[in-house]
């Protein structure tokens, strides 16, 4: 299936956006301007973008504690996201959620959730809603290799299968849950193998190859829209940073050597952005110059987002006590 140049270029743009956004997050954490746990997606951009671009703009997406890249890949505006990370009133969640729980309902991002495994059932629920509302949407749920050990994985896969829900479970297997290797915690070679146990297709894909991810997710989405039910896709990818930003994890990383240098460097060589950029140039979709511009533009977008965030007001103290309910109490 042919992917339009426009789409290909948009993919690269979003990958750069995520990369620049995350690099800025690292700076802000180091500078003490961004507090709380912050998990970056550097190295996993192809998985995020390939999956989200394969969906319709208003399809549903749910994600994880590694929360920034998913909505950006889905097309979220950067300013409200960055403002959220800096706890501003203009944050997409009004400064209520911070880094681990971004959401942008305007582009189908129904919420990143930081309790590992907690988003899987709700993603099936959004798919059930789509089915009952007959709105033709599909639901995609990002989850990690670590999350695949939660009971909610099993329950969600089973429910999605027996009800033939239009949902795609996308396992971002970056090899580790914090310091714990998937090779230790997952009792089977590929998480995708577990799809058999739920009578649904299970596909392993190279998570550093955005086009490969795009294609398998597009097939899964088609299958879902046709009413043929859910799919499990496992993207093999890698995070280039420690589990989270902040000294604690740095030291853990350094001290533990839970990822050998050799492994680490071999993955660095497969930087999804470098690979995809080279491919597009080679394909003649863009020139090096145009690619540099994309890089430049997205970097500026991020800088503008930071400026916007820093210039935005903090929430009124009173707002801490507001917004618990959607239906105010009659009493």
């Amino acid at each position, binding site marked *: 299936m042919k992917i339009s140049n426009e789409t290909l270029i948009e993919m690269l743009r979003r990958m750069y956006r995520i990369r620049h956004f995350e690099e800025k997050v690292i700076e802000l954490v180091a500078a003490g301007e961004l507090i709380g746990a912050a998990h970056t997606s550097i190295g996993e951009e192809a998985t995020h973008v390939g999956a989200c671009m394969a969906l319709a703009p208003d399809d549903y997406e749910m994600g994880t504690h590694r929360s920034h890249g998913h909505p950006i890949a889905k097309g979220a505006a950067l300013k409200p996201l960055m403002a959220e990370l800096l706890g501003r009133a203009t944050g997409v969640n009004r400064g209520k959620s911070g880094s681990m729980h971004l959401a942008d309902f305007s582009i189908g991002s129904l919420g990143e959730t930081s309790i590992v495994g*907690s988003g899987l059932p709700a993603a099936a629920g959004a798919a059930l809603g789509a089915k009952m509302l007959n709105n033709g949407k599909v639901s995609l749920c990002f989850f990690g290799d670590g999350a695949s050990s939660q009971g909610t994985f099993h329950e969600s896969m089973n429910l999605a299968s027996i009800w033939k829900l239009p949902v795609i479970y996308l396992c971002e297997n970056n090899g580790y849950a914090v310091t714990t290797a998937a090779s230790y915690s997952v009792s089977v070679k590929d998480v995708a193998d577990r799809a058999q146990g739920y009578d649904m297709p299970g596909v392993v894909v190279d998570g550093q190859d955005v086009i490969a991810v795009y294609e398998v997710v597009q097939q899964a989405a088609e299958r879902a829209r046709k009413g043929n039910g859910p799919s499990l896709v496992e993207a093999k990818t890698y995070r280039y940073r420690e589990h989270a930003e902040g000294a604690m994890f740095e030291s853990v990383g350094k001290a533990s050597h839970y990822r050998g240098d050799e492994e680490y460097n071999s993955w660095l060589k497969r930087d999804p952005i470098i690979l995809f950029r080279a491919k597009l140039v080679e394909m003649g979709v863009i020139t090096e110059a145009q690619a540099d511009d994309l890089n430049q533009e997205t970097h500026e977008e991020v800088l503008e987002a930071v400026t916007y965030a820093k210039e935005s007001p903090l929430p009124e103290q009173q707002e801490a006590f507001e917004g618990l309910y959607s239906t105010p109490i009659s009493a």
Partner: protein
Amino acid sequence: MRELNYLQAIREAQFEEMKRDPKVFIMGEDITYSIYGTTAGFLEEFGAERVRNTPISESGFTGVGIGAALVGMRPIVDYSIASFIFVAMDQLVSMAAKATYMYGGQAKVPIVFRAVMFYGGGNAAQHSDRPYPSLMNVPGLKIIMPATPYDMKGLLKSAIRDDDPVFCFEDGTVLSSTGPVPEEEYLVPIGIGDIKREGTDVTIVGIAGCVALALQAAEALAQEGISAEVIDPRTLVPMDKNIILESVSKTGRLVVADPAHKTCSAASQVAAIVAEEGFWSLHAPIQVVATADVQIPFSPTLEQQVYPTKEKIVEAVHKTMA
């Protein structure tokens, strides 16, 4: 007026709301067979899409309900027995209760959770829980606890129309109790308590099944010339403080009866509110009559010991009058 029992009131509320709004649907284990009668005839009326049997996956289908609510559906999740909600606790606490606030108002979670508390029937520790206090400590959930068929129908209909997650706990000791329920449509608002019996000497706040016991106690006390006012908060979160504080300001004495375990019970919360905000009205120590802080034993000889009873409530009132 026409009389219905508590289960019929649940059925009617669900039936009417599903008729009214096609976005309302119900799911639970064996729900199409309606073992308790609250969905009798629903499969025929609404079809299998809106009356969904679930596998035994409480966290899974709770989360499915939450996700469906996030995109505009209005699910009713029936757990049957309240002891099973612990399996779904994370979905209730981390997702249902937190989404609206955490996502800055982007998320609406119009979902109703229902569970019957089957205590007192010899089902022992794993099937006799009254777990509402554990959820009362979790901001974001509304918790209703109807004690009569009238309140059940009216509150459950309000819950289904509410845009927030509402947990409806049903008391297994009053399932077959009947009461007047008008034919015509009505709602009982969430968050408003009710004076079930007026009195002047002592206030008895009854929770769930203890409302009936409190009324029996009030009757017995009347024989002795003690006039007890019986208050049913009906909603535990948000709690109608004022109706309790006003009653205590009149009577000066408070007994709280609650089928939950005593430590961190709803009764303790009522006592704490009055000790903080109604202290100057009190003429005597508050008395809490709740279930003992032990697990629920099977043998009827043992099980009968642990719950509040009419006699224990009367005795507590006597203490406050002493």
